[in-house]
Structures are given as C-alpha cells and as structure tokens.
C-alpha cells in the first residue's frame, strides 16, 4: 500500500536526519534523568500509602517521568515542521505523488521510535536508582506513552504547519502543556492536594493514563483504572491523529 510505503520513506529520511544530530535525543533525556536523580530521593521520604502503596517510590515516579518525557518530546516536534515548511521541503513533497498523510505519519513514527529509545534508557536508569517493577508493566507503560506520542506529535505538527511561526508556537504549546502536566500528578500524588484540585485534575487526560501506568507498575493489570487509562490513551490518539491528518491532507496549505 502506497501509504505505508510513503510513510516508511518519510520515516527513513527523518530518522537519518535525527541520527545526524543525536544531541537532541540526549538533551531530551537529560531532564527526566535529572528529576530521577534529584527529585526522586525526596519522594522516598513520603509515607508509602500516599504513593499508592507498594513501598517503592520509583514505581510511582518513573511512570510520571515517562509521561513527562512523552509530553515534552512530542508536543515540541512541531518546531521542526516550521523549519521544514520554511525551507520549502513540505511544499516540495506536496507537489510529488507522495501520500500527503505520509508526510506527517513518517515523522510521527520517527518520534515514537525516538521516544521508546529514550524511555528504555530512562527505565534502565530508574532500575539503577532502585526501581523494581514487573517486565509486562514496563512494556505496558511503553505502549501507553506510544499512544500519547502518536496523538500529541500529530497535533503538534498540524499546529506548527498552521501557525508557521516559532515565536507563536512555543508560548502556545507551553500554555497548553504546563497546566496539563501539573494537573496530571506527575511529581507528587494528586491525592495529597485539596478536593478542588483533585476535581480540576479530572480534566487532564494524562492523569488517567498515569494512574493506569502506576497500576501496572504495581502489578494490577485488570481493573477499572486500567480500562479508563486505555480508553483515554486510545481515544486521545485517534482524535488527535484525525485532527492532525486533516491539516496535512487538505488541498491548501
């Protein structure tokens, strides 16, 4: 099928370009590792019950950091499409018979691959710090962040292509991402907060995904938290992918 073929073509090109500048992949990893090293130890002092039980602070913290990695890594990919648009590469591709959706899909695939590699490194570092979690849980966690990345990267590319200006793109993304991140309970359990905060936090889709990942890390694979998390992750990916693809396949851009 030409869509898959074209997606792989765009993926290989983007992957090659990314490997030419591996510094960005490493820089993207620095932040979560710093949190792991410098913030993680603080969590050890909290009573185990507030972290959802299980007695291992890293089982709480690592899923949060994985989501943070996915969130920042994927929402800022739109920057790159602005410079691709400016260099005329997007237009050049659009005049060829290449599937126009593949122009986005190939890039999203590259971002997902990059994220999984970063996530694997993060988990290994986490284990070095004292994380103990079952292997299926780790893999389930990867699947969750892949869904997050697919959705967010698609929307980020579409937004970049619509906004066409780095100066407008950065504040726009920050305005959306930071509140979502804070309301997701990535660093500290939201249960520590007052009722109104817990109420508002219900609007952040990432909250459900993190909760489900934490359940998995505790070895609980079959419960409503998990179902909710999967529904939100898949639903978000589908809706965002659809929104993003509309921008790429439309006649005029």
């Amino acid at each position: 099928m030409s869509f898959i073929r074209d997606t792989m073509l765009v993926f290989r090109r983007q992957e090659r370009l990314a490997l030419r500048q591996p510094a960005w992949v490493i820089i993207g990893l620095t932040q979560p590792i710093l949190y792991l090293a410098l913030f993680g130890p603080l969590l050890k002092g909290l009573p185990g019950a507030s972290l959802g039980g299980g007695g291992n602070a890293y089982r709480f913290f690592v899923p949060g950091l994985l989501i943070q990695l996915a969130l920042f890594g994927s929402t800022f990919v739109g920057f790159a499409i602005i410079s691709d648009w400016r260099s005329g590469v997007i237009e050049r591709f659009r005049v060829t018979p290449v599937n126009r959706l593949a122009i986005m899909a190939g890039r999203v695939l590259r971002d997902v691959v990059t994220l999984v590699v970063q996530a694997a490194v993060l988990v290994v570092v986490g284990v070095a710090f004292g994380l103990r979690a079952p292997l299926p849980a780790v893999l389930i966690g990867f699947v969750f962040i892949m869904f997050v990345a697919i959705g967010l990267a698609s929307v980020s590319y579409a937004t970049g292509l619509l906004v066409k200006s780095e100066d407008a793109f950065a504040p726009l993304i920050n305005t959306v991402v930071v509140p979502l991140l804070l309301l997701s309970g990535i660093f500290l359990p939201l249960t520590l907060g007052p009722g109104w905060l817990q109420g508002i936090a219900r609007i952040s889709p990432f909250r459900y995904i993190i909760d489900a990942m934490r359940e998995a890390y505790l070895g609980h694979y079959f419960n409503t938290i998990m179902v909710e998390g999967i529904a939100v992750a898949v639903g978000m990916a589908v809706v965002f992918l659809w929104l993003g693809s509309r921008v790429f396949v439309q006649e005029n851009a």
Partner: protein
Amino acid sequence: MAIIEARGLARTFKSRRRTVEAVRGVDLTVGDGEIVGFLGPNGAGKTTTLRMLTTLLKPTAGTATVAGADLLRNPLEVRKKIGYVPQAIGETMGGTDPSCLVIEELLDQAALYRIGGGEAQQRAGLLIDQLELTGLEQRLVKTLSGGQRRRLEIALGLVHRPPLVFLDEPTTGLDPQSRSNLWDHIARLRSELGTTVFLTTHYLEEADVLCDRVFIIDNGVIAAEGTPDELKRRISGDVVTLRVSGADGPARTLLAGQAVVREITAADGTLKLTVERGEQALPSLLRVLDAADITLESINLSRPTLDDVFLTLTGRSLRDDSHSPAANGRPAREPAAASKE
C-alpha cells in the same frame, strides 16, 4: 499540442473581514516544448496561479488540464507528470533541507516518484553531471553556494523526467554569473530533453533571453501575451536615431516619404524616426540616404524593452517593486547596436 490549458482559473482568499481576488480568471495555453515566462509585479497573482497549476492550491473557479490530466479531478496524475521548483527567496525557500547531503536529496526525491535502486542512482548521477554538481554529492546542502543550491533544487524537479517543469523565480537572488549559467541550463532542458518550461520571473532580460512567449499578469488577469518581440512591437515601434552632417532638412523630407516611417522629428541635425520592425527598416533607410548623397555621422536603433511594454499595459514599472539588480534606474529604452540585430 497544449500541455497546459487553463480556462477562467480564479482564486479568492477569504479572511475575516475582506475577500481578496488574487487571481480573477486566467486563460492560458502553453504548447508542448515551449519555454514560457510569467511576468508580473509582486501581488499580481503570479505565484497564486503557479500554485494552482501545481496542485498546491485549489482554484475557486475555472478548469485546467496540466500535462494531460485534469487539474481538479485528478491532481495526483498531474503531480506525477510535473516538476516544480519553488521560489528560493521569501517566506519559504527552494525546497532543500540544509542538513541533508546532496546525494540524499536526489535519491529521496527519486523515491518520492517511486524510482529506486540502480535507476535512482543512475538518474542522480546524470543530473549531477548535467547541473554541474560533480564532487558535491557528499556535501551538506547548507554548505553549498547560492548557485549550487539552486542547481540542486532544479535537479530535484527533474529527477522523474517530467514533460513539464514549473520554475518559480529560478534565478532570483543569484549573482549575474550564476544567473546566466542557470539560463544555459534552462535552455538546455528544452533543447536536449524537450521539456516544457513554465517560469515566473521578475527579470525582464530573463524573459527576453529565455522565453518563446510571455504572459503578463496584472491584478489577477492576463494583461497581454505574445513573444517578447511581438509585445514590444505592439506597444510602440522601434526608434531609429540618425545624425546627418549638414542640414537635416533634406534628409527629413526624404525619410518622411518612406513607407516604413511612422513618425519623424528633427532637431539640430538629429532625426528621430519611429518605425515598425527597426532591424528590417534600417537597410532600406540607409540605401535611400546613400542614394541622395546624405552623409550619416551616426545611427542607432533602440527597441522598447519589456519594461516599456509593462509600463504601457499596467501603468506601473515592473522594476519598481522588484528586488532585482536591474532595478537600479537604467534608461527605459535600452539602446541596441544596429549590428547586433
């Protein structure tokens, strides 16, 4: 056979408050193997028309057949058949990624047209030769000079050997030497490959040197079309300036009686004649003067430039808003030595 046939092509942009009619019904016919120029100032509708013909922008009205396929019903087929080299200066650039290697760009472009393996390698190698990119295969695009990068961009538009190629301002921003070098390459596209070339330009001399036919677009409609020579002739005749030794009276009387002379003025031994086809009129004028024993001190034939054409048609000079080096106030009429014609 027409390779581009557009009828009433129009594009309206709607923003919050107002509606802009960027292109208001363009009719175009371009024959197979022609090199045509699309001339107009910024905002005339040049790029909008080009973007419609290359499937980047959907027309709000009109129909077109491009390279044998219907533009509206089968844009994918159009894309397979055309090459497009975007404008390199302005909001967006010419389509190459600064962090790619030259050879990667060529092979990726081939892959976009489903050309792979040895065939892609071979075509890339040929284009590298043809466009003088030899030795640059492993260089990053960002390390190329302006002229080299432009040649690469043109090579990308040719990888699939399209019968029709669109060049949006192919030489804008290049130094004069690179520009005339690129003109050679563009001319060779037709002479060696039979490619039809549709180019937009700000440079009148570019249209003059390169194009068989020129379309002048202004305010979203085609204001005139024809060969550069036809257009110049249609606007005003050529001007022959003569200096005779002695009194100008007899010469004036004599020349005024010639059929080719449309208008004549004389002052201080200098005669100004407006004639149809100056290059053909000159020999007969010289013979007449010679027969009457009138001695000439000098003779000069000047032809209207495309800018004169443009000025007459639109009331604006094309140079006013062009960022071309030609914009530095040369005389409106370009003197051409009689011998050159």
